[in-house]
Structures are given as structure tokens and as C-alpha cells.
């Protein structure tokens, strides 16, 4: 957080409507994402109650467990859920682009699509992670056998939850986090965690302002929680009697329908909000580096899908080597992601301008054709004087790049009262005369920053899972035991 986001929040509070903190969309949105709204039973770690899901906003599927304490019903739910998730995965496997031959002589490919999942909030991610944990070790034969799709679901859910931890990944997005990346509201992050309240601030319904819409969103009757936790009053007054009736009626289909109806009523409003949020995000143009990050996501998906058959379920706990590598990867991904967002979006770059690591203004002078003839051979070294009101905190000698075109590099010569004097060093073509349009002209607006290509990280860093054995080898696999496979799920 910073003075900038705080200011945006204060402005939102005064205006009664959310204020933008991004001018482009910083995440990928698939043409047909799988939207999921899961609910779990209160008091249990990972007892599924229901999930509303699908890629067609007009036709959501509802899966529900009429008696969540019943183990068989729970596994039946897992099997149905698995079928839908695996269908979504399969729908995104098909076309692939060739990346040429790898070192081992095998042809490498990247699927052109990847299956995206959208959840309301982080709680949903935690729930999927636990659901993945409780199903991925199950066996499909022997005692306590389950349907083959169940352990497969567990492995996919685990993979998705893991991808969510990766900064800049769009494979599994949560709506509250994603919206907050683009808008600031006049309420605290606690209240922003309520999807209905957040959307209410961003796009209040006719006749209401943000605060009024958010207030309505806090009434669990008008606006049921987005899960995975349910509203306690709903549990006590609606759900519990419906489940009891189901138990009492000897599992009569009508009694089951009563439970399903109750759950549908809780889920449908959030389902609509999810799609409204998708619409809101689509109003923003996609950021310049989004496609590149999505390419990494597609790489990860391609790898996971193609090695699925011969791999074992993910371990219960990461071994040390893998955990350390993962942390390192996440840090690099975080740095790269932050730099990319700033380069993509002037409204994000101002964060660096406020901190003095970037500055913007109008070119007021300099020498656009200047040659440095002090060495053996003359070099093209134009000077630009940029008038700026920004609190520049760069020392002479600091390397900077042009924010709009990071290929244009230079270094700070002097920070003075009439502006910052920059010497351009690269990105102007090969000759002694700058390529047309490469050097900003007097009167042009420019932003230079010390964030460099370097802090982008290498364009392609290896995924943890395909670290070659030459770099420490693939981590030892965790081999699940009988005990894992037969673990209680009560």
C-alpha cells in the first residue's frame, strides 16, 4: 500500500463510487472461463455442500450434497464435480503450436488455449486446495475404491491452487483480488472481501451509490455470502431443516430437491455477480504483457497435462529443495509481474514516479542528434532535457529506460531545477543518425524509469516442474501410501 492507493480510497469514499487504480486489464480473461462458486459445510475442513459452475452464464450446473456428513454422497459429489472439471480441461486441449525441438530431440509444443477457472474469493482457493488434498491420494481399486475421476480431480485442483500462488498467473483468478487490482473503493479490504459489496462500489445499481449498494450487500438475506462459508442463519433456519427432512424421508428425491433449491438460492446471486465482474473487467483493454504471461500459463498447462499420466499425485508437503526453488521462482515472478504492470499501465507507473524511481514530463530541450566523439569512434549519444514536477530520486549515472518503449535506454546526467538531463545510449538504430521517431522531440511527453528490462526477469524462466536434471534434477517424487489412499474423510 502507498499514499497513492490510500488517496484513491479516500477519493472513492468522497465520491461514493470506486476509483480506478489501473487503466488496462492486468490479467488474461479466457473466452469461456469455468466460473465456480463453491460452498462448504460450516465447522468442517473440507466437506463440500454445493458448487455452482459452468462456462455459460445462462446455464449454470448445480451440484449439491443433500447430506454432507455422508461419506458416500460426498464421494459421489466429488465424482460429478470431477467430470465437469475434467471436461473443461479437455475442452482446452487440442490445437498446439510447435516450439521446435528440445535438447533431447523431442518436439516441444504449447497448447494454444488453457482452461481458466474463476472463483469469487481466496477462501474458495483454500477450499479447492483442501478438496484437492482430500481426493488426490484416493485409489481406484481395492478397499475404499473411488471413481477414477476423483483422484484426477484432486491433482488438478491441487495444481490450480498452486498456480494461484504464482504472481501474474491467470489460470485461477479470484474475483475480489482481481477487481481490487483495478479499482479502489471507499471501504476497507475487509469489506472488499465481500464480492457483492465490492461490485456495488464499482458499479452501483441504478439509484444507489457505492456505500448504499455495499450496505445492501451486507444483508445476507438480500445478498447471500459468496462462499465457501455459508450464512449461519441460513444454515440454522433453512438448510438444517431441509437436510433433516431428507434424512427423515428416506432420501426421497423431493426432499433432495428441497435441499438443492435452498442451495441454489444461496448460489445464484453470486453466480450473477461473477459474470457481472467479468463484464466489468472486459471493459478494460488488455495490458501489453498479459499475453506473454498467459503464454507461461499455457506452458505450465501443457506440461502438466502431457505428463499427467506418468506422474504421481503431488506430495503432502513439499520437500526442501522444491520448496526453496518454488520460493525463489515466486519472488522472481513477483518482481517481473510488478515491473510489467508498471510498463503496461501509466496509472501503475506513477507509483514509481511518486517514489522517485521514475519521472515524467515534457521534453524542453537537449541535443537530439548529439554525437560523442571523445573515443576512437563517434557514438550516437543524444541529450534530452525533461522538465518534471516529480520528486526525482535518481543519482547521476542511473540507467533509465523509456516507459512507453523500454528499448530506448539512457542514463541520468544531471537532476537540476529546470529538469532532468538524460543521455540516450541505445534503442535508436545502428547508425550515427537516430532512426526516425526513436528520439522523443521537444514538446513530447515522456516517462523514464530505472525499472529496466533486467527487472523484467528473463523472458522465460523455467517452471519449477521442468527444471532439468542438470540444474539439480527433478525433485524426488512423493509416493502415496495405502494410508493416504484410505484416509478418513469424515
Amino acid at each position, binding site marked *: *500500500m*502507498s*499514499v*497513492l*492507493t*490510500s*488517496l*484513491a*480510497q*479516500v*477519493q472513492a*469514499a*468522497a465520491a461514493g463510487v470506486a476509483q*480506478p487504480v489501473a*487503466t488496462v486489464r492486468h490479467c488474461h480473461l479466457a473466452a469461456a472461463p469455468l466460473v465456480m462458486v463453491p460452498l462448504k*459445510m*460450516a*465447522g*468442517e*475442513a*473440507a466437506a463440500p455442500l454445493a458448487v455452482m459452475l459452468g462456462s455459460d452464464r445462462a446455464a449454470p450446473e448445480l451440484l449439491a450434497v443433500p447430506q454432507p456428513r455422508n461419506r458416500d454422497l460426498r464421494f459421489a459429489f466429488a465424482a460429478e464435480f470431477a467430470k465437469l472439471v475434467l471436461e473443461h480441461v479437455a475442452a482446452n486441449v487440442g490445437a498446439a503450436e510447435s516450439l521446435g525441438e528440445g535438447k533431447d530431440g523431442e518436439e516441444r509444443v504449447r497448447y494454444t488455449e488453457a482452461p481458466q477457472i474463476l472463483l469469487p474469493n481466496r477462501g474458495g482457493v*483454500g477450499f479447492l486446495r*483442501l478438496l484437492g*488434498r*482430500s481426493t488426490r491420494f484416493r485409489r481406484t481399486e481395492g478397499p475404499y475404491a473411488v471413481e477414477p475421476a476423483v483422484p484426477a480431480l484432486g491433482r488438478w485442483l491441487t495444481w490450480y491452487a498452486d498456480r494461484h500462488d504464482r504472481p501474474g498467473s491467470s489460470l485461477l483468478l479470484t474475483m475480489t483480488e482481481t477487481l481490487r487490482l483495478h479499482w479502489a473503493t*471507499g*471501504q*476497507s*479490504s*475487509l*469489506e472488499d472481501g465481500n464480492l457483492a459489496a465490492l461490485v456495488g462500489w464499482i458499479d452501483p445499481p441504478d439509484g444507489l451509490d457505492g*456505500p448504499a449498494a455495499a450496505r445492501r450487500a*451486507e444483508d*445476507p438475506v438480500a445478498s447471500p455470502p459468496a462462499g465457501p462459508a*455459508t*450464512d*449461519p442463519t441460513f*444454515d*440454522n433456519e433453512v438448510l*438444517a431443516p431441509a437436510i433433516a427432512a431428507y434424512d427423515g424421508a428416506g432420501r426421497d428425491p423431493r426432499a433432495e430437491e428441497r435441499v438443492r433449491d435452498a442451495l441454489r438460492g444461496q448460489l445464484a446471486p453470486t453466480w450473477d455477480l461473477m459474470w457481472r465482474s467479468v463484464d466489468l473487467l472486459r471493459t478494460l483493454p488488455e495490458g501489453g504483457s498479459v499475453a506473454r504471461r498467459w503464454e507461461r500459463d499455457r506452458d505450465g498447462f501443457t506440461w502438466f497435462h502431457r505428463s499427467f499420466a506418468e506422474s504421481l499425485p503431488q506430495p*503432502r*508437503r513439499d520437500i526442501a529443495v522444491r520448496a526453496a526453488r518454488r520460493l525463489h521462482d515466486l519472488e522472481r515472478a513477483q518482481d517481473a509481474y510488478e515491473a510489467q504492470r508498471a510498463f503496461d499501465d*501509466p*496509472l501503475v*507507473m*506513477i507509483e514509481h*514516479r*511518486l517514489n522517485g524511481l521514475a519521472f*515524467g514530463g515534457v521534453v524542453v530541450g537537449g541535443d537530439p542528434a548529439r554525437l560523442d566523439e571523445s573515443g576512437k569512434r563517434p557514438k550516437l549519444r543524444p541529450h534530452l532535457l525533461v522538465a518534471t*514536477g*516529480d*520528486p526525482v530520486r535518481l543519482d547521476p549515472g542511473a540507467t533509465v529506460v523509456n*516507459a*512507453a518503449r523500454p528499448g530506448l535506454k539512457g542514463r541520468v546526467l544531471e537532476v537540476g531545477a529546470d529538469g532532468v538531463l538524460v543521455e540516450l545510449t541505445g534503442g535508436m538504430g545502428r547508425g550515427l543518425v537516430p532512426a526516425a521517431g526513436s528520439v522523443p522531440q521537444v514538446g513530447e*511527453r515522456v*516517462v523514464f524509469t530505472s525499472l529496466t528490462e533486467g527487472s523484467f526477469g528473463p523472458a522465460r524462466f523455467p517452471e519449477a516442474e521442468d527444471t532439468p536434471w542438470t540444474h539439480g534434477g527433478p525433485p524426488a517424487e512423493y509416493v502415496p501410501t495405502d494410508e493416504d489412499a484410505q*484416509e*478418513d*474423510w*469424515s
Partner: protein
Amino acid sequence: MTDTAPALDRLRGDAPPRNHDARTIAALTANPGCARRGLMDAAGVDKDAVARHLGFPAPFGQSQFAITRGNGFEQQVKENGCAELLTLLRERAGLDVAEVAYDDLEVVAGGEGRELRHARTRALLGRALDGDAGTLFDHPLLKLDIAGQPAYLEPDVIAFQLAGRFHVVEIKSFAVIDGQAEPEQVAAAARQAAVYVLALRRLVAELGHDPARVSHEVFLVCPENFSNRPTATALDVRPQLATVERQLARLTRVDRLVEALPDGLTFALGEELPETVRAVEARYAPECMASCEMAIFCRDEARACGATGVLGRSVRDDLGGVDSVAAALELADGTREAPPELAELAGQLRTAARLRAEALQLAAAGGVA
């Protein structure tokens, strides 16, 4: 502080007093600067009823599914004189006593008076401190002085004689999966347990023994993975203990708060209630939502006066010294003169406002730069 007792009784009106428990004390330390809460809690005012009466009921409902699960688990662990708990403590904590006495202090012959129950806890503890037998106390009742008022506390179990020390045992029904539990839930359990440790240490000291005989290591008993099987985890609550002690010492003395009140003030439910509540200063922060029944009312009040505190701790920290939304905006657009101590912040706000306006204008014009 018996002299404030009548004043506190009057504040409460005719209602019977509500008492602190470890959860409310832990919560108290989350916002020690709030006079409103300090006073209402000290007087034992039913904040839930007050909030309801004011039209801002607390959103603290509990699902019967969660209650059933919680009670069921605790019962299971405590069954047959805490048999399952004992096995766990033997295995996980190296409790090496063959025979362990079990004392259930819940029902004291002929009466349930808290003073009596506390006296019995005290007597049994005293005996245990002098001997060296292993003991489990079920439903003990401890006492802690909060801002000059006694509060009674009921830890789940106290286990004695692991290397001569007492350990507080907390039974919680959230799951520990592959050795990990939800951090917020563990943190809340640790805060509560720290309150018990503190109360127990004070009692041990009163009995003339070394308070260090109460361990800062508590045992958290939770279901393991997705089963009903309990598992015990040792938890070092020293950090929480330090916080609780520091905050309790800082709590504004209730007698001083009472003195400052206008005569005749009462939290009895009635027409004057909103005025009474407003007369006592609050200090709302979003953290109140998880810990105080008055939260919705106080948030509404703070919003109405445009306090920046409602936007969260990060905003309050970023805008340190600027308490209202209006003031922050006026500093940002230069219409308000900044006092010297806010000059730097004001400068930042002005730059931030200019940069935001420029970038947004540019985006609206469809440009990039």
C-alpha cells in the same frame, strides 16, 4: 476497585452483568484505546443487546453445524476422564506419569457459584503445586483482573506435571492438515491461551509459587486431517503473552473513565441509548468487525464523520495524522494549509493527486506514455 462498582452497576441498568471471557479479553487487547468498549465491558453491559437495540446487530451468528461439530469433538476428547486427551499428551508431550488424577471442577457440590468454583480451583492447584502427582483439571475457573474488575475465565483443561509444570490445553475443532492449520484460527487460539496462561500465572504467584511453573507452551488439540482423530500441537505463546500483558497494563483504568462521565449516564436499553453510547469515545478500525459486537454501529458512526480509520490500517498509516477523508482531499488539492508536521505528507498527497489526474486524463484520451 469496589468504589466504582455502584457506578458500573448503574451504567448497566437493570440487566445482569455479562462477563469477560478469554475471547473478549483477547479482543480487548486488539483495540485497547477504545474507551467505549473498555467501559461497556467493565460494566458487563450486554453489547450484543445494545447493538441490536441501536439497530446495528452484530453479525456474529454461529451455524449449528459448526456448534455441533465443536461440541462433539470436545466431548469425544474429554470422554472417560479425558482418556483420549491423556493418550495424546503421553504420546506427543512425553507425559511420563502412569497415574493421572482427573478433577472435573464444573459442578461443585450444592452450588455453581463462580466464587466457589474459583476457590476450589485455587485449592486444588495449591495442592498440586506442593505435590508431584500428574493432574488434569477439567473446567477450572480462573480469575483475572481487567482494568480493576475481576473476570472469570474457563480454560478447556489444565494439565499438570510435565517436568513439574502446568500446561494449558485448548481444544479446538478446526482441522490440522498435514501439520498446518488456518493461521488466523491458530492465532486466535494462541491469544486466548495466552490469557489463560497469564491468569494461571497470577494465581500461582498468589499461592506463593514461582509463576514460571506455568509453561508458556500450551497444547492445541485439534482434529487431524479430515478425520475426527485428535492431534496435539505444542504452541509457544510467549509473543501473545507479551502483547496481552502490555495491553492490559495500558488499558485505561475504568475508574478514570467513569469519573469523566456525565452523571446519570446509563446503557440501559431505552430512548437515550444512542446518545449515551455516542457520549463515550470510540476508536473504530476494521479489526473491530471480528472482535466487538458494537462494530456495525461504530463503523456507521465513523463513516458518517468521514474518518479515514474505516478505510483500514494501511490507509491510516499512510495518512498518519490526517484523520478525515475531507482533510486528506483538501491537503491533496492544496485547498488546506498543512501544519508543519504534515508538510511532507501534504507534499506527497499533492504529487500523488497530480499524477493520478494526469494518468487518468491520458487514459481517457486513449494515449499511453
